[in-house]
């Protein structure tokens, strides 16, 4: 089973590296991802300089946003793309178990998304050190707490995106449809708390803000990470239940 998961992961990675679409040369997918990470890692670390390392921004950008943005396209393609390109039937007709196919796809996506977050954080650290703001100071790096937070959140966010992405992709007729659903879901997830917050009574808003300001950041992070893990595992279990060869072969 583990060997089969690795096999599927290896195939997924090769496809990520090759990139989406019919044309283009080898490595197009990785070049596109690196370009995106590069764009997200130049301007603001350059402006922040060493302040980057004590800021919460890298935890949000590299732990949450980059893994999601990088994964959104590839995970939408996971099943819907195979269905569109008529490779799913052959995969389902192979000796691979349902779990090996699903976990292989999720595993490849988690590794890809986490790697994107970590590479992003490293690239930003390099840019921050090169910033003219701290020309006279020596080299600096993230504190251990931030490193743990970035790596943990990148892993969990990738797992969540991979789980929800597989679930959406299993149901979607096309990759485009899956991408649209994921984008819509992402905006709903990001903006819904702000909208809900705005409609709350002023006194409740003040209570929430006070509680957040008084809370221990490590505790908040742990609760958030735990919630991410729970939701991701629940979605993965739903995806496992929905992965049925007979249904997929007929779709």
């Amino acid at each position, binding site marked *: 089973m583990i*060997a*089969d998961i690795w*096999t599927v992961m*290896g*195939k997924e990675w*090769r*496809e990520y590296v*090759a*990139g*989406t679409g*019919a044309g283009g040369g*080898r490595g197009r997918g990785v070049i596109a991802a690196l370009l995106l990470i590069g764009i997200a890692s130049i301007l603001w670390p350059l402006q922040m300089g060493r302040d980057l390392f004590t800021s919460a921004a890298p935890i949000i950008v590299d732990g949450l946003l980059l893994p999601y943005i990088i994964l959104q396209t590839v995970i939408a393609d996971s099943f819907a793309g195979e269905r569109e*390109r*008529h*490779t799913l*039937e*052959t*995969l*389902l*007709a*192979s*000796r*691979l*178990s349902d779990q090996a196919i699903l976990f292989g796809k999720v595993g490849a996506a988690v590794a890809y998304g986490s790697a994107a977050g970590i590479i992003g954080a490293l690239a930003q650290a390099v840019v921050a050190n090169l910033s003219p703001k701290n020309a006279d100071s020596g080299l600096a790096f993230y504190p251990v707490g931030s490193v743990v937070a970035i790596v943990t959140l990148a892993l969990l966010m990738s797992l969540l995106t991979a789980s929800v992405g597989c679930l959406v992709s299993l149901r979607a007729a096309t990759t485009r449809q899956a991408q649209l659903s994921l984008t819509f879901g992402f905006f709903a997830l990001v903006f819904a708390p702000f909208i809900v917050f705005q409609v709350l009574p002023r006194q409740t808003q003040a209570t929430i803000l006070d509680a957040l300001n008084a809370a221990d950041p490590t505790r908040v992070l742990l609760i958030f990470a735990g919630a991410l893990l729970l939701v991701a595992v629940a979605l993965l279990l739903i995806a496992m239940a929905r992965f049925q*060869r*007979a249904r997929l*072969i*007929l779709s």
Partner: protein
Amino acid sequence: MTEAAIHTINLTRDFGAVRAVDALTLEVPPGIIFGFLGANGAGKTTTINLLLGLLEPSAGQAQVLGFDTRAQGGAIRERAGALLEFSGLYERLTAEDNLDFYGRVWRLSAAERQARIRELLTHVGLYDRRKERVGAWSRGMKQKLAIARVLLHRPALIFLDEPTAGLDPVAAAALRDDLEGLVAREGVTVFLNTHNLPEAERLCQQVGVIRSGKLLTVGSPDALRQRTGQPQAEVFGEGFTPEVLALLRARRDIASAKVENGRLLLELADQQVKMAPIITALVEAGVQIEEARRGQASLEDVFLSLMEEDRAQEVVR
């Protein structure tokens, strides 16, 4: 029962109100190419999906390589290979990467994968192009690669669903040659879905004809021709007038006579009918004969007559 590569008893599959496969009882011996003939939508692809354990039957049962399709689909897929309706190749990957992936899926060692990829790609004439991305290839090349992929893990049984569909005649002939050579060399049982009757006639030792999910007949192409098709004769020449045709149709030894593309086509009453008296009668009627030859109904004739018979019975029912 365990000797047959495929054995089905009343295998049935419904999709809502539509019965895609209707009480299919079939036995395919090992080591042969079995042609499953039928028009589009006859139930051929559903049958393959049932035999691979990808779909649950609504009724009946099937054993493939001795395994029950309901409970042991995984064991069947472990030992079988399938080229389904589409080639199933990853177009963004190279030919070598495609085969390497499926070699890993079937747990071939690195050395074994390398050797097998070389062997199969050389056989189908694609070894020099193994580093190319498959997306840019012609359909014929993709199908050859897909057949190499199907045979990669030396399966005991392979399912091929219309492997030459959509290919030009040259590519289809090349693919057939490769398929014939590979199958003979590997000693594999083949379940070939096709509506290409000359292809079935050339490749298959046994054929089954399916219509609307029902198996109409099974047998060797020769036996089917004998059982269903009447002996025929073709006469080339001039002077096939309506009077000559009327004269021929009045004879007891001729079941039917028609002129098609300038030649006279005769359906003889039975195998014992001699051609000499017919030719004498034609000459006496003023026909100038250049060539006359006796033949048998083609598989296509048999297929069409079976379809026609079944349609007629359906109307009666």
